Each structure stands twice: as structure tokens, then as C-alpha cells.
């Protein structure tokens, strides 16, 4: 179950945050997302020799918490996508395609001439696309 999805800009400014459960409050999710930003910075500044050579780096599990895991994805422009989920067993391929879909939805949203780069994404269609990507991710992993 995906708990929330967040998009953070290159100056670590929040661009989009959407939660998909009723119980968790936004503050706790903000806190989780903030902590994962630190982990991302750490990974970026200390590239491992055996790290992935792909440009659009899928960062994998950032850190496991008690009940959920946090996954990260970094684009070339230092825009970070963060996903918090309570699922325990997720395939790498599913995650990569999830973040790829999220990336293309994000690209379409910022191509809107009325979107100001750096400000929050206010587009309703982006929120809807994210919701549908999240829904289809949940059903895809039952195979």
C-alpha cells in the first residue's frame, strides 16, 4: 500500500505531496520526506564505485522504518521523487516503471506554461495521474 508520493525540487523545496491513506497526518509524512532528503544528499555526494551507471538514478530503498519503506528517484535536474510504502515485498522492475511513469507525468505538468518552476504543482490533472499511477501500481504487484 503506497502511503504517499512526494516531489521535491532541486533546491529541496517541496513541489508536490500527496498521501493515499486516511490515517497518517501530513506532518508525519513531511517529516519522513525531509529525512529521506538527507539520505539522498548523502548518496549523491558519496557515489559508490559499484553504483548504477544510469543517468536517471533510481536510488532504491532509502531507509527502512518500523512499518514502511521509503524509495527515492533522482532526475538529472536534481528533482527528487520520493515514495513511502507499507508493502514489504516489491520488485525492482515495478518500482522502476512506477517512477518512470511518475517522471513523465511530472514532465507534462511542468511543460504547462502557467506552471512556475520552483513553485508547487497546482495542476489537478497531475494529481489525478499520480493517483491513477499509484492505483495501477497496487494492482500490478498482485501478479
Amino acid at each position, binding site marked *: 500500500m503506497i502511503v504517499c508520493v512526494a516531489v521535491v525540487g532541486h533546491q529541496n523545496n517541496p513541489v508536490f505531496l500527496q498521501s493515499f491513506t486516511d490515517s497518517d497526518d501530513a506532518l508525519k509524512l513531511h517529516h519522513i520526506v525531509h529525512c529521506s532528503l538527507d539520505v539522498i544528499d548523502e548518496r549523491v555526494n558519496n557515489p559508490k564505485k559499484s553504483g548504477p551507471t544510469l543517468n536517471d538514478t533510481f536510488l532504491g530503498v532509502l531507509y527502512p522504518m518500523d512499518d514502511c519503506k521509503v524509495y527515492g528517484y533522482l532526475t538529472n535536474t536534481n528533482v527528487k521523487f520520493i515514495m513511502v510504502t507499507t508493502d514489504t515485498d516489491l520488485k525492482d522492475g515495478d518500482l522502476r516503471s512506477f517512477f518512470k511513469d511518475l517522471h513523465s507525468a511530472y514532465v*507534462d*505538468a511542468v*511543460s*504547462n*506554461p*502557467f506552471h512556475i518552476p520552483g513553485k508547487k504543482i497546482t*495542476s*489537478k490533472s497531475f494529481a489525478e495521474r499520480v493517483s491513477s499511477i499509484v492505483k495501477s501500481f497496487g494492482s500490478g504487484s498482485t501478479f
Partner: protein
Amino acid sequence: MAPLPPRSGDAVFANIERVNAELFSLTYGAIVRQLLTDLEEVDEVNKQLDQMGYNIGVRLIDEFLAKSNVSRCADFKETADVIAKVGFKMFLGVTASVTNWDADGMSCSLILEDNPLVDFVELPDTCQGLYYCNILSGVIRGALEMLCTSY
């Protein structure tokens, strides 16, 4: 030389030079954004887009007639059809449908199902009265004005 038969929109579109659709949409979006920043009033922007379209239309009509070889239209209905099928196809790559004719046959609506100008665009709440594609109305107005010999 015998007059060439009128070419359909597809035939003309196949032979004409083209531009990347994303570049086109992003450029038009940037123009509208800049007009909004400069003029601030939505009505002013609408007027300016119409005027820009008019200036384009008065020049575009010659290229259209030269490349498409359409014959003289008998009435306004035919004119609307030619604009929708040949004109839009030639310059935007999409055809429009003509609907909503009024009783006199004096006005109609051209509906664009798939408009390349508005890819990625979502109007914010502050610009709800904006006619984003008003440049197209200006183009049609300019082109038709050049053809009008009487009235």
C-alpha cells in the same frame, strides 16, 4: 496550362515543411505567458492575441491559396468547410469539425478535437476568462478579410 485540381489537406500537409509539435506548443505557451505578464489584464491579452492572429492571417492567406489551389467557394458553408478541412490541416496538422450552424447559415462553430496549441496547458483560476487560442480566431478573421471583395 490547365488549372490544377484542388489538393486535399492531407496531400498539402504531406509536402509542406513541418516543425516539432512540442516546440510549437511551448513557444506559443511562452508567448501567452509573456503577454499575461506584460499586460496583466485577461481582456487585453485576448485582444492582443486576436490582433497578432490578424497580422498572421493577412499574410497566411496568400500562402494558403498558392499551395492548396482551392477553387472559389460558392457560399459561407463551403468556406467554413475549406477552412476546417484544408486550412487547419495544412497549418496545424489537425482537422476541425464544423457544427452548430445557426438558422441563417451566418455563423458556425469550428471544433478542434486535438489542438496542438494546448498540449500540456492547464489554465489557472486567475485566468479563467482567457481565450487561450484566440490567435486562431484572429488568423481566420485576417485571412477572410483579405478575400472579401464586396460588402
